[in-house]
């Protein structure tokens, strides 16, 4: 049985370990010039971390959703976050695991595996805008609840600047790729249109995340505030990774920053997994009392919390 606090610690240490492995593989590649070091990192610990964190995030989000009773204001928001987690996990398994050439991929051992792997890699990418759509809808509900409870904060100059950068990037992307008469990436297909939604959705997500982050900062650093700050951090890392990919493709940033943008997805995934852990801890603590922080059985992630009232009879 694992405690919610332990989950936060476990994810933080795993992320640190993964980033140390990333540095080691990068250094080995830099010294030897052998790309195998980088592939070994991205295809094995990288994929396992991504899928593991997505699975954990989905499980914790599901437990949070189950803790809310029908009619609770946050229940629809957490249902959408569960759907976000599900599409993130599905995209991770199809795109990162089945779409890679690693020994972990069962398709790798099939005779016709090569084509299937390519199809899986292309299909996995489609889940990114779908998951973003679910998260944006969930956060929209959270923003509504913050506003209703009088805790929604306004935007500051830095927020407008950050949003401006992402909006300019999105407009530039649309002008250069989507609205261009000559599509450099081939003919327009429904799957391509779906992937184009990612950047506008990221703008919306960033706006929501900043609003929630400001509201949480106004409240302080409680468990509920930490949950939404973790989501905000995850969205921020995703935006940085997305802009980094675009900037790397155009060669407008130095190599060091390009390399950093390859790894920024891992802290983003970790934040997505940790965010529901804070919410779950808050809900279990409220239901069972502070004793649940000390008794592992009371705060197990088996999700039986709703059946145990506080104070105990």
């Amino acid at each position, binding site marked *: 049985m694992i405690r919610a606090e332990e989950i936060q610690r476990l994810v933080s240490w795993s992320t640190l370990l993964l980033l140390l492995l990333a540095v080691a593989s990068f250094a080995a590649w830099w010294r030897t010039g052998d790309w195998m070091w980088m592939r070994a990192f991205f295809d094995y610990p990288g994929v396992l971390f991504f899928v593991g964190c997505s699975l954990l995030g989905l499980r914790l989000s599901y437990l949070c959703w189950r803790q809310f009773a029908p009619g609770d204001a946050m229940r629809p928001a957490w249902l959408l976050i569960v759907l976000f987690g599900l599409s993130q996990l599905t995209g991770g398994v199809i795109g990162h695991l089945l779409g890679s050439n690693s020994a972990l991929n069962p398709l790798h051992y099939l005779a016709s595996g090569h084509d299937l792997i390519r199809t899986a890699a292309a299909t996995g990418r489609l889940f990114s805008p779908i998951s973003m759509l679910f998260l944006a809808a969930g956060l929209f509900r959270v923003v509504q609840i913050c506003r209703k409870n009088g805790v929604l904060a306004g935007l500051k100059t830095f927020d407008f600047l950050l949003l401006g950068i992402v909006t300019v990037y999105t407009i530039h992307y649309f002008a250069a790729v989507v609205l261009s008469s000559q599509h450099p990436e081939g003919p327009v297909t429904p799957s391509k249109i779906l992937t184009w939604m990612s950047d506008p959705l990221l703008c919306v997500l960033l706006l929501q995340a900043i609003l929630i982050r400001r509201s949480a900062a106004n*409240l302080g650093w409680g468990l509920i505030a930490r949950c939404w700050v973790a989501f905000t951090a995850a969205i921020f890392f995703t935006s940085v990774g997305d802009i980094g990919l675009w900037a790397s493709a155009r060669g407008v940033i130095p190599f060091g920053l390009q390399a950093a943008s390859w790894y920024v997805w891992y802290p983003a995934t970790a934040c997505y997994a940790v965010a529901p852990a804070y919410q779950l801890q808050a809900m279990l603590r409220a239901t069972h009392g502070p004793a649940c922080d000390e008794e592992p059985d009371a705060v197990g992630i088996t999700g039986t919390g709703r059946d145990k009232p506080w104070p105990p009879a």
Partner: protein
Amino acid sequence: MGGLIHPPMEELVDWADGAATPDTPTGRHLERCTVCRAHALLIRHASQKAREDEVGVGELSTLANAFERLQTCMGAWPGNWRRHARNPAHARLTRTIEVYFGREAASRLAKASGGSEPERHLMLVMKPMFSAFLGAAAADALVEQIAGAEC
């Protein structure tokens, strides 16, 4: 009143709560004994007041006003909650708010109430917020938890 046996306090409380009818020995005694009747009426008045204090119909508008006032104050004031939470009951509530929402939220509530709002009112004011972010069941448990600690 010489020769009268006055009923014990428990029976006066029963009468005040309406459990004892006029045809019971206590009821008959209270018709004759002005001292006991005065005591019983005082108990009835206190009991009614206590029930109204829970969430009296008449107090709902007062609570709504208090909620609005506190929300306005919480939105505007930063500060140090420890200074305003000298009352142990308030300190317990602000600590709880600090755990879930953060120090700033606790500080604002403590400062907004200024120590003048009864804790029961503060808890009722905060309950919709707990209910929104934690769910109704967790909010109820939290209110019970604080009430239990008070006892």
